[in-house]
């Protein structure tokens, strides 16, 4: 089992984005996912910049994966997707089925992202036949549902699990950050730049609930499976995905790495730097916002 740094889901300044990957080059992550997966209007790094960064990280010994945009709306979105597929130097994570079509036509092995909605071994087998070598279950999937799929998973299929970060829950045509500022999406003035960890949404009684990140809605709670390493190993999970956040990301990676090496004090260390309250309900087959760890008897 090793660590992946997931794609940066937020919109950061060019300097901050490049600084993240400068640091990440020396972190104990085996692979790094790059690219803009949320919003095509985010342009401080364009595809050539991402490709240059990809080459740099590959030269530094990282396995690099280019992540495709999750919601494709326009011909220009497709153009970017085709350029990603045709580059061929790096593996691609397909986050919708148009990308699957282009990658399988190109004969390229690929990663099946969590928004492809693989809920059963039959669909996983379809993807394996098309060239998927690794897949991510939907973030709502429980350990037990995942175990049932893995019993019948295609041979050599690697499984990566979203193991740390605010959960990406929904995608829309509408930009909720622009809406908050009463701006049209087409003239959003890139307000996402002001919210490097998204815009927090609370209930009317002040309970934090969700996070607005442009067209993406995330959980407010921070999903963490650092306490679940034994069951993840038992399932034969090959990689854990850690989703970048703006503070302490190096420490988050170190905590997971040390925990995988057997240091049981790391869960507590991680708890002190979480950018929100911990949640892990999904893993335990409950509502995603619940925190079940330690309360289980099974």
């Amino acid at each position, binding site marked *: 089992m090793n660590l992946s740094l997931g794609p940066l889901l937020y919109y950061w300044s060019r300097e901050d984005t490049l600084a993240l990957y400068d640091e990440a080059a020396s972190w104990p992550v085996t692979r790094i996912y790059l690219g803009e997966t949320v919003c095509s209007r985010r342009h401080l790094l364009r595809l050539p910049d991402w490709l240059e960064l990809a080459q740099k990280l590959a030269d530094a010994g990282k396995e690099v994966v280019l992540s495709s945009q999750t*919601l*494709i*709306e*326009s011909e220009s979105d*497709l153009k970017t*997707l085709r350029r990603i597929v045709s580059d061929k130097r790096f593996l691609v994570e397909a986050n*919708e*089925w*148009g*990308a699957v*079509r282009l990658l399988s036509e190109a004969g390229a092995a690929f990663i099946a992202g969590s*928004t492809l*909605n693989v*809920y*059963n*071994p*039959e*669909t*996983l*087998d*379809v993807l394996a036949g098309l060239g998927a070598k690794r897949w991510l279950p*939907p*973030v*709502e999937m429980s350990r037990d*549902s995942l175990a*049932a*799929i893995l019993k*019948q998973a295609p041979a050599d299929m690697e499984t990566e699990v979203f193991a740390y970060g605010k*959960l990406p*829950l*929904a*995608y*829309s*045509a*509408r*930009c*909720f950050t622009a*809406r*908050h500022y009463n701006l*049209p*999406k*087409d003239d959003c003035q890139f307000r996402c730049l002001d919210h490097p960890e998204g*815009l*927090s*949404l*609370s*209930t*009317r009684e002040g*309970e934090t*609930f*969700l996070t*607005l990140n442009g067209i993406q*809605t995330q*959980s407010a709670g921070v999903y963490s499976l650092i306490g679940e390493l034994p069951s993840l190993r038992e399932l034969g999970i090959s990689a854990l995905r850690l989703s970048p956040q703006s503070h302490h990301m190096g420490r988050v990676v170190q905590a997971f790495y040390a925990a995988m090496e057997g240091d049981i004090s790391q869960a507590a260390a991680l708890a002190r730097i979480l950018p929100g309250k911990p949640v892990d*309900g*999904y893993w335990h087959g*409950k*509502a*995603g*916002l619940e925190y079940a760890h330690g309360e289980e008897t099974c």
Partner: protein
Amino acid sequence: MPLELVCPAGNLISLKTAIDNGADAVYMGFRGNTNARAFPGLNFDEAQAAEGLRYAHDRGRKMLLALNTYPQTDTWTHWTGAVDSAAKLGMDAVILADAGLMRYAVKNHPNLRLHLSVQGSATSYEAVNFYREHFGIQRAVLPRVLSLPQVENVVKNTAVEIELFGFGGLCVMVEGRCLLSSYCTGESPNSAGVCSPAKAVQWKETPAGLESRLNGVLLDRYGKDEKAGYPTLCKGRFEVSGETYYALEEPTSLNTLDLLPEMLKMSIAAIKIEGRQRSPAYVAQVTRVWRAAIDAVKKNADDFTPAPVWMAELNKLSEGQSHTLGAYYRPWK
């Protein structure tokens, strides 16, 4: 023929009502969680489905079966069994979201017509064509996220018929890509066939007003003169940076009557009316209005304007008594 009118049938009465009021096709689901309206008291057993099918076919109409949740591993045979039933009963098409289930259908029932459900989240012609090439789908229902020119671009680049939502409850999120309900309650449309399930809803009168909660999470609080709607998660009022508002979407319905001429011109195959969970009275009124509107636009698209009486009638049936063109109209985004 373009602009086939596809109406919701939560039960046999609604099915007959839709057909009697002019639906070209009805869509329905089996009992259980194989479809995205897995509500108590809703949907068909096999005998009712057979009766509905006779009723539809005797009148030259079609019946489509929604099997549009994602099959779970340990209950896989519930979904394959439903596909088998559909073929045996002679359904005109099944509406699927899951690639594995499509493969099963093609392999075992090669003559069964397949539609790609909106839950399949296909928003580009590349995605639509993927399902065409691999599973021979004949029609795709597009998620409510594309503007009309974007829809037209899909239509121009695929041989697959395109069906659009015309009226009813509005999903703000890409269908099939929304887990807000399971985050809050443990059950999502993808895995359980429900959004904001009724069993998780709580209403409470408080000194501050009537409160609606979903699994304990406060979705809204209504003042004395405010009308309380069903607490769908994405249509609650929340606080963002100290401001309380409908942060995701207002309680409103999609209504695209205004767009019918453009939809006709771009050869949209079918218009879908949302609302299998709604009453037969809703089905009757919406079907009647849309039948009249589609007939009118086909007669004379250039001079088509929705009759005020149609709009008034549809508004009465809308969530929040208001309507929107949704993403078809770019500024909504």
